[in-house]
């Protein structure tokens, strides 16, 4: 017998949990720019603040179910920062880090989870998709967007994110397959936070890595330390550049850990092993980058304090905007169904208005 194919999976990490650059690889240019790193640090903290505020809102009855991205901020901020305005984001339901990076407003995130369809009517990120609740469906949508870009010869790419659990879905494999054969400019980000609600990663697949699912589709892939924002951003920039220039798709598996419950309505203490959280907090992305910045004498307690104040104000502003948004009138249920509402349904619209007025 002869061997007709082999594969290997590379792992990329620049910065370890102590905030030290350990890699033999040359860090990308942005990693040597303190201002860029500070901005990334700030952006991750913004998401953390947003998530915590959202939880507080939910606990005080002002927000519906909300899925935080605690501990995974480096992934969304990292790959989101590699995107340009022209690129399109097709997020998954835990995607607020990348969404906010790419121009979705925080209040739009809050509005969505707060039960307002207005939350999907992005004012800035006009071509981005709203989150997909049916798992992995977004992967296929991303390939469609990329196909349009390809057909028009545009120098743009698509980023789409999925949890490691979502990669079990048929839609994910189908998306990889078509991206591979059609050479589509899609960057598939796998957020491997190790948990799919209560199902741990080891029960999800027999693959040693999630990245290698790309191999089955003939697609390039890489695994990165998802808590190392430098690695995430570096890999994303490379993949984005490739995708924009006709180089085809990439799968980037970012390994992290979900440091929060699946959503505000979940209780992870039921299934999470003891000690995992403690351990996880030591490796999380924000503290890691902070350690690095401090090691470069680029970050002080005052800086932290000031930043937290500013972020709180920003988040509060978004919260205020969200809380002040009026509920749609009942006719809104009808007015966006079709370009023109069928006659048969007009009577129902009137009825809804009449009932709503009572």
């Amino acid at each position, binding site marked *: 017998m002869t061997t007709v194919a082999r594969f290997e999976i590379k792992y990329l990490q620049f910065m370890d949990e102590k905030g030290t650059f350990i890699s033999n690889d040359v860090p990308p240019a942005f990693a040597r720019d303190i201002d860029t790193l500070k901005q990334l640090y700030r952006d991750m903290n913004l998401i953390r603040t947003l998530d915590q505020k959202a939880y507080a809102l939910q606990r005080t009855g002002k927000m*519906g*179910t909300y899925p935080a991205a605690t501990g995974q901020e480096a992934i969304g901020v990292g790959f989101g920062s590699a995107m340009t305005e022209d690129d399109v984001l097709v997020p998954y*339901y835990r995607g607020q880090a990348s969404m906010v990076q790419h121009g979705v407003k925080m209040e739009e995130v809050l509005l*969505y*989870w*707060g*039960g*307002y*369809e207005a939350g999907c009517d992005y004012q800035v990120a006009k071509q981005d998709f709203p989150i997909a*609740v*049916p*798992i992995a469906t977004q992967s296929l949508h991303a390939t469609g967007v990329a196909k349009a870009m390809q057909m028009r010869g545009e120098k743009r790419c698509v980023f789409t994110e999925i949890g490691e*659990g*979502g990669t*079990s*879905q*048929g*839609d994910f494999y189908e998306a990889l397959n078509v991206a591979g054969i059609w050479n589509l400019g899609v960057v598939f980000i796998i957020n491997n936070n190790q948990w*799919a*609600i*209560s*199902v741990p990663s080891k*029960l*999800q*697949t027999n693959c040693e890595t999630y990245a290698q699912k790309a191999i089955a589709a003939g697609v390039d892939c890489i695994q990165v330390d998802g808590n190392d924002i430098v690695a995430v951003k570096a890999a994303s920039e490379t993949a984005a550049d490739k995708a924009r220039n006709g180089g085809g798709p990439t799968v980037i598996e970012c390994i992290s850990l979900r440091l929060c419950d699946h959503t505000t309505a*979940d209780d992870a203490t*039921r*299934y999470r092993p003891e000690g995992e959280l403690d351990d996880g907090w030591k490796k999380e992305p924000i503290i890691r980058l902070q350690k690095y910045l401090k090691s470069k004498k680029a970050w002080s307690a005052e800086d932290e304090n000031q930043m937290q104040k500013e972020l709180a104000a920003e988040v509060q502003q978004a919260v205020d905007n969200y809380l002040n948004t009026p*509920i*749609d009138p*009942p006719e*809104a*249920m*009808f007015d966006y*169904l079709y370009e023109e509402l069928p006659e*048969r*349904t007009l009577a*129902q619209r009137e009825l*809804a208005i009449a*009932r*709503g007025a009572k």
Partner: protein
Amino acid sequence: MAAITLIEAVNMAIAHEMGVDKEVVVFGEDVGINGGVFRATDGLQEKFGEERVIDTPLAEAMIAGIAIGMAAQGMKPIAEIQFMGFIFPAADHIISHCARMRNRTRGRLTLPMVIRAPFGGGIHAPENHSESTEAIFAHIPGLKVVIPSNPSRAYGLMLAAIRDPDPVIFLEPKRVYRIEKHEIEDNGEDYPLGMCFVDREGSDITLVSWGAMLHETKQAAEKLAAEGISAEVIDVATVSPLDIDTILESVAKTGRVCIVQEAPKAGALGSEIAAEIAEKQIMSLLAPIGRVSGYDTVIPYYRLEKQFMPKVQHIIDEAKRLVEYR
């Protein structure tokens, strides 16, 4: 005897049957160690082990497909789809295979399986978690679709579903999962599938409903009684195959009927019931057949959900309109 909620009744029925029949197996996402996101399978993995209560990877088509394979081998799988909104990847298997296997093999291969899913709105959930699309499966010959409205029925009908030799889609109205408790003895007694239950006898109008809307319907019946209107309340329970005779008998008695459903109006189960009544019992009708339903719109995000869901007052208004119809 324990006083338990609907979701606990589902749990009790599954546990009972797993205890007496080794072929019964439970699987789905988060059903094992977590006991299911609504706790439908709480405690089952502890009791019956990981081999019989299995946490699957995140893939609904796979869940349905595996159930088919196991059932064809004579096992009795109870597969959970976490929310009805996510049943659609599995719909191909359900419609193209579950519904047809007995027919196309002329009875050689049969599928004694249950696919259960929470369905319906009213819990302030994110989108895709509130759908009432039972009509899609009720339309498919070869499937049975069962919807319990209270804990006792959840227990009895679930046992019946597990014991049924054909595929049953068991849809649980999540809005009423915990709304009340019934005293239920874990005696393994199943309820008949394919039958309506007459929950309240009356003479002036028949109110037909299923699932969570039965609660609003019963409330409406109480209020109507206070105004001198005697309403008969029927719980359809088995949405397919439909026991239309019980409904027709009731219409013969009252002459008026109103169907109450959470689902959007067009092409729903209420449409089928109305057509059957018009076809078979038209000589008894003193008024048009009424329907109280959701609108023919996408069910809105939860801020507007209240506007979408039919209310007790709507049922009362429609009942009165029919009773006063000339």
